[in-house]
């Protein structure tokens, strides 16, 4: 669970690959600060970073949640991270390569759109004069001016389409950009010919307006994908990169984990992650293995225990002997498994591409038949080519190009305001096809953090426990302290408070020794089989008293699952936990089909079986152990409290303590799907009217301009109505993640 680690994770050395060095020696670095939401956070982050000695300049970007830091030669990037951690911000280095790639594409499209917008307005102005009666030399002059504006614009702004069309044609395929490129180039060439020969009609306005509308669609589409790339950067900082090697003289030195050899002795301080798999040689502590198992209750380890890379050391320092090199750990295995299943994703064909597969050949044959028809009927080459180009212009998929991105941007905006982050538009399309939902248990259906369910009567026991629990970072202690807080219990005054790693906390109260911890440590009965986690309190020589904890269902889990079933979805529960615990949660949540004892690979197999049955599965999971399954599912969601790797693998990330976003996303996706179909219907309907007009040769530039703009505006307006119909379900804002209580 990443949330439990942010508070205590130590400052790692930053890999030099993340730091760019300019010629004059100044170094700069991008950090991802994803819990930056408001003006206050922004100011705090910037001021904290600027106050670090050696920082020349720090500027935060609230949209991308990034902090750009420029360092003097004396500055250290680790100091910036440490300062930010001290004020409770989670900052991670961000790969500058990813950042600049995204920016270049977005700004190229934006520039193209700006140029096309300028040109279409000015050419339209000239065209309107021609339509209102300018003729003779005035018309020729206006056409020449239009040509001078339009031709450079087509060359400049058309590049994204020409490039993509050329790539498709080169490999013998066709896509939406092929008819666009042919239409725009054909219209421009014919118009130029008409201008040179003083002809009556020129389509310069049509070709640049087309480019403008299409580029609007592309810019919207690009916005959607931008978010996805930012999310991918999370993966880079997941695994521990540095190990602390114990030298023969007892001192420790940081080495990259790739140079750890089998048999090396390594030191793991509290708050650090175990760097590689190994065996504990000295020390005792509790390990949080949530990253590997998704299990929130820590495991006590002592000398001789086998421990795995990625586990978080909570309470005491450990020394360990490495038993596997970094690339052969369990963690590395899971990451490889995930990379392997991630590939088949390419099979999914996006709606827009599916439409264009039908559309492009239809348009081309219509234009070709028009050309042949006019030639056969003996109207001459000029008239035939004019009619064919008119068909190409009028059928250019302007409305079609806007049909999908316009709807997706509206839907994504709605979801974002409800705390649901879509990582790409394809996720929304896939979500609308889902017929089965598979949930993980711990951290997904449940909150993933233990809550007190049963404790002793109020009184001294509570006051003493509150004092003892306050002295430990152990998740059960925190849960106990939280429960005491909720009941307004004041901590009793205790002295000599000390944490015994792997056992518990002890102190003195009113002269009596008091202990809070494991059953054996306080001589409590150990044969209880409630399946719940427990902590015992002993005051002096009194009978020990138990506090029982369980991982609670998210408050709206049952209601959400009932509503999902009402939508006709098949709900399953798949978990790595033991059968009893899984069945108990399944019964509480109202899920009839559950599968327990699944290893990460087992979850993938379960999903593959479902996929073979022809089901489209939505996987909802949060742990590292779910990551391969998240990547293998048709589409996946992960709570923002989940492991970083799960969020990187999932197509959709949701915030808050409720499960409602799952339902809300599916409903939104289905509505968006209907709206997209509606938009396609509008675009096709427009063509059914416009194509015969063009084929018969009545499509003058005026008609082409009016009909093209009208259909595009109609499609955008239709997409905007989605916002209205979603407002009803969008009003239920989930609560902000209560980070403080978790970490």
């Amino acid at each position: 669970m990443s949330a439990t680690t942010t508070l205590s994770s130590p400052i790692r050395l930053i890999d030099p690959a993340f730091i760019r060095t300019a010629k004059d020696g100044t170094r700069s670095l991008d950090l991802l600060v994803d819990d930056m939401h408001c003006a206050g956070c922004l100011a705090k982050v910037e001021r904290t970073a600027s106050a670090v000695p050696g920082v020349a300049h720090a500027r935060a970007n609230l949209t991308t949640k990034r902090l750009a830091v420029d360092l003097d030669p004396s500055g250290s990037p680790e100091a910036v991270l440490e300062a930010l951690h001290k004020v409770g911000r989670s900052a991670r280095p961000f790969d500058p390569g990813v950042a600049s790639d995204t920016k270049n594409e977005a700004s190229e499209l934006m520039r193209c759109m700006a140029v096309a917008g300028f040109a279409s307005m000015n050419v339209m102005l000239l065209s309107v004069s021609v339509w209102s009666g300018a003729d003779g030399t005035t018309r020729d002059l206006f056409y020449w001016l239009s040509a001078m504006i339009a031709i450079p614009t087509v060359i400049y702004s058309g590049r994204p389409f020409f490039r993509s069309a050329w790539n498709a044609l080169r490999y013998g395929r066709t896509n939406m950009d092929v008819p666009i490129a042919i239409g725009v180039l054909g219209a421009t060439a014919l118009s130029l010919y008409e201008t040179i020969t003083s002809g009556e009609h020129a389509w310069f306005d049509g070709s640049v307006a087309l480019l403008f509308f299409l580029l609007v669609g592309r810019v919207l589409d690009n916005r959607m994908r931008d978010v996805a790339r930012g999310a991918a950067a999370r993966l880079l900082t997941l695994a521990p990169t540095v190990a602390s090697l114990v030298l023969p003289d007892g001192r420790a030195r940081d080495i990259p984990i790739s140079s750890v050899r089998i048999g090396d002795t390594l030191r793991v301080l509290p708050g650090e992650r175990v760097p590689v798999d190994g065996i504990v040689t000295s020390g005792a502590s509790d390990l949080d293995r949530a990253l590997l198992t998704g299990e929130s209750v820590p495991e006590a380890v002592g000398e001789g225990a086998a421990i795995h890379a990625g586990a978080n050391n909570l309470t005491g320092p450990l020394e360990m002997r490495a038993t596997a090199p970094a690339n052969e750990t369990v963690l590395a295995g899971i990451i490889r498994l995930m990379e392997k299943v991630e590939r088949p994703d390419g099979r999914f064909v996006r709606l827009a591409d599916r439409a264009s597969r039908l559309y492009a050949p239809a348009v081309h044959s219509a234009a070709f038949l028009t050309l042949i028809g006019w030639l056969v009927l003996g109207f001459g080459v000029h008239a035939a080519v004019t009619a064919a180009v008119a068909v190409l212009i009028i059928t250019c998929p302007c409305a079609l190009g806007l049909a999908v991105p316009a709807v997706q941007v509206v839907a994504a905006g709605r979801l974002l305001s409800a705390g649901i982050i879509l990582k790409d538009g394809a996720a929304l399309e896939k979500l609308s096809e889902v017929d089965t939902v598979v949930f993980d248990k711990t951290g997904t259906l449940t909150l993933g953090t233990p809550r007190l369910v049963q404790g002793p009567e109020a009184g001294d026991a509570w006051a003493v426990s509150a004092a003892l629990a306050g002295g430990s970072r152990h998740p059960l202690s925190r849960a106990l302290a939280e429960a005491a807080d909720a009941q307004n219990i004041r901590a009793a005054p205790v002295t000599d408070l000390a944490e015994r790693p792997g056992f518990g906390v002890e102190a003195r109260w009113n002269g009596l020794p008091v202990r809070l911890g494991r059953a054996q440590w306080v001589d409590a009965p150990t044969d209880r089989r409630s399946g719940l986690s427990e902590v015992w309190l002993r005051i002096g020589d009194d009978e020990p008293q138990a506090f029982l904890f369980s991982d609670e269902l998210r408050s709206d889990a049952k209601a959400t699952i009932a509503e999902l079933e009402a939508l006709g979805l098949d709900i399953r529960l798949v978990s790595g936990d033991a059968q009893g615990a899984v069945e108990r949660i399944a019964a509480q949540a109202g899920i009839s089909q559950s599968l327990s004892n699944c290893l990460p690979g087992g979850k993938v197999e379960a999903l593959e079986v479902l996929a073979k049955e022809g089901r489209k599965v939505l996987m909802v999971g949060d742990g590292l152990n779910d990551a391969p399954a998240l990547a293998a599912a048709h589409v996946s969601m992960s709570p923002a409290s989940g492991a970083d790797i799960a969020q990187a693998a999932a197509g959709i990330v949701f915030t808050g303590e409720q499960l409602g976003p799952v339902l809300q996303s599916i409903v939104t996706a289905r509505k968006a799907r209907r709206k997209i179909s509606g938009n396609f219907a509008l675009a096709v309907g427009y063509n059914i009217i416009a194509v015969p007009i063009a084929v018969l040769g009545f499509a003058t530039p005026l008609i082409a301009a009016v009909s093209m703009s009208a259909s595009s505006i109609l499609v955008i307006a239709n997409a905007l109505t989605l916002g209205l119909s979603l407002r009803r379900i969008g009003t239920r804002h989930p609560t902000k993640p209560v980070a403080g209580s978790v970490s």
Partner: protein
Amino acid sequence: MSALLGLIPIALGFGILALLVFLWSLKNGQYDDLDGAAARILIDDEQPADTNPDKKEQRHV
């Protein structure tokens, strides 16, 4: 007709000027952080330059 010969270049000139201003602002990063621009107006200005770094630290934390 002669009026057009003067007006069209003027109109185009203004259009190109507006386009250049937009491209400049795009390149200059004016659209990189739209949310941040809205939030920054709410941030109080830094207090007058303080030469004592310790004091500065305290104020921010």
